[in-house]
């Protein structure tokens, strides 16, 4: 028991590395917020673009969405960070992590918005168009308000999942929670920094996970 306490909850080690974990915490939050903000806006833009039904454009959107839904985010991040410099596109670990996760979220979000748009009955489009609204006006004033409501629950879950993906950024040298915790663990030969890192994630995500249950119940798709 003493051994477990010394290795997982060593107060001395914890006190020493607390500032590092806090630094990591701030960076994780910053990265997650940037990713979610970029991803859900880009996803919406793509879904709106898709609603114009321009064949070649839609084809490209579907390819983009499929690609970023199918590939593991870590693989994409590795390509951005380790492969792109070979063709003259060098970026920091933060930019690689941010752009990779934001694009993955955008791909998932586009599908979610698009499902919402498709769920609005065709008759509503026709009714709105026949009152003189343009295609874009119909989309903005009639279709999207209904589509967005349906998108809230799945989008919340997806955004939380992607935010947890920020831990991957540790692999491309971004000093977020996990990177700090792993480094501190190696230096101190003690697991306590990892415990602290785990607690930091718990503080960050447990409320979100719990809240997502509520959101799911509140905005559930009626089947």
């Amino acid at each position, binding site marked *: 028991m003493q051994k477990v306490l010394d290795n997982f909850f060593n107060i001395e080690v914890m006190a020493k590395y607390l500032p590092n974990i806090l630094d990591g915490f701030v960076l994780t939050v910053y990265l997650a917020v940037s990713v979610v903000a970029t991803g859900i806006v880009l996803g919406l833009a793509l879904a709106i673009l898709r609603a114009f039904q321009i064949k070649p454009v839609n084809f490209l959107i579907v390819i983009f969405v499929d690609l970023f839904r199918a*590939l593991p985010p870590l693989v994409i991040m*590795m390509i951005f960070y380790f*492969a792109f410099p070979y*063709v003259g596109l060098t970026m920091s670990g933060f930019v690689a992590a941010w752009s990779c996760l934001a694009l993955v979220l955008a791909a998932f979000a586009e*599908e979610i918005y698009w499902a919402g748009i498709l769920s609005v009955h065709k008759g509503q489009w026709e009714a709105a168009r026949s009152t003189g609204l343009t295609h874009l006006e119909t989309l903005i004033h009639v279709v999207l308000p209904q589509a967005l409501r349906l998108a809230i629950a799945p989008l919340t879950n997806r955004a939380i999942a992607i935010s947890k993906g920020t831990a991957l950024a540790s692999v491309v040298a971004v000093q977020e929670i996990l990177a700090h915790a792993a480094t501190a663990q190696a230096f101190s030969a003690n697991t306590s920094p*990892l415990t602290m890192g785990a607690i930091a994630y*718990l503080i960050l995500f447990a409320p979100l996970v719990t809240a997502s249950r509520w959101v799911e119940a509140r905005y559930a798709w009626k089947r």
Partner: protein
Amino acid sequence: MDAIIENFFNVPIMVKMFPFLLSGFWWTIKLCLLVVPLGIVSGLAVAMLYATHIRVLKWLVIIYVDFFRSFPPLVLLVFVYYGLPLVGLELPALISVVVAFMLNTSSYYGEIFRAGIESIPRGQWEAARSTGLTWLQTMVHVVVPQAARNVAPDLTSNTLEVMKFTALASVVSFPELLRQAQLAQGLTYNPTPLIMAAGMYLVLLWPIVRLLSRMERRMLAVR
């Protein structure tokens, strides 16, 4: 353009590294075959515990599920692989990956099955029980088959996520596809293997993404 072909689609390197990457690809498939069924079975167990309607059990399940949903899978993996040896529990990379993933995937699959089981009307339970089936028989023969069908898109979506998670095993030096690609890149000073690995992931995962899109579309049509 030449730089892109030279660095991303270098045919001699592709030919040379193909067997090496293929060995990683097989490991990725084996990992999937191990992790996905384990996740489904343990998730089903979690959901069934919840469905017993024993209050204490119900709360324990909710705490378990929300606790492990709060951690990025990579954090669980690092904790199990790097943290536990310090208290004398040294697990091989394969076991670490399986244990860490099971904690994560049983929670997600558990939530999905729970929703599925709740979607089955009370009357079915009563009818099955009144024919003399036990609680467990009702669960296995009546409720779960229908529940699984109701949540098939969510199950597929989560399975896709779990399969993508296997790339995380590269972080603990497990010789799956991404890890082999990184090693090959180091050997050849050329990122072609990374692009190749991405291609191999697409071969494995793109069909599932397509299947998922079809299922989601059908779900919308039924509504």
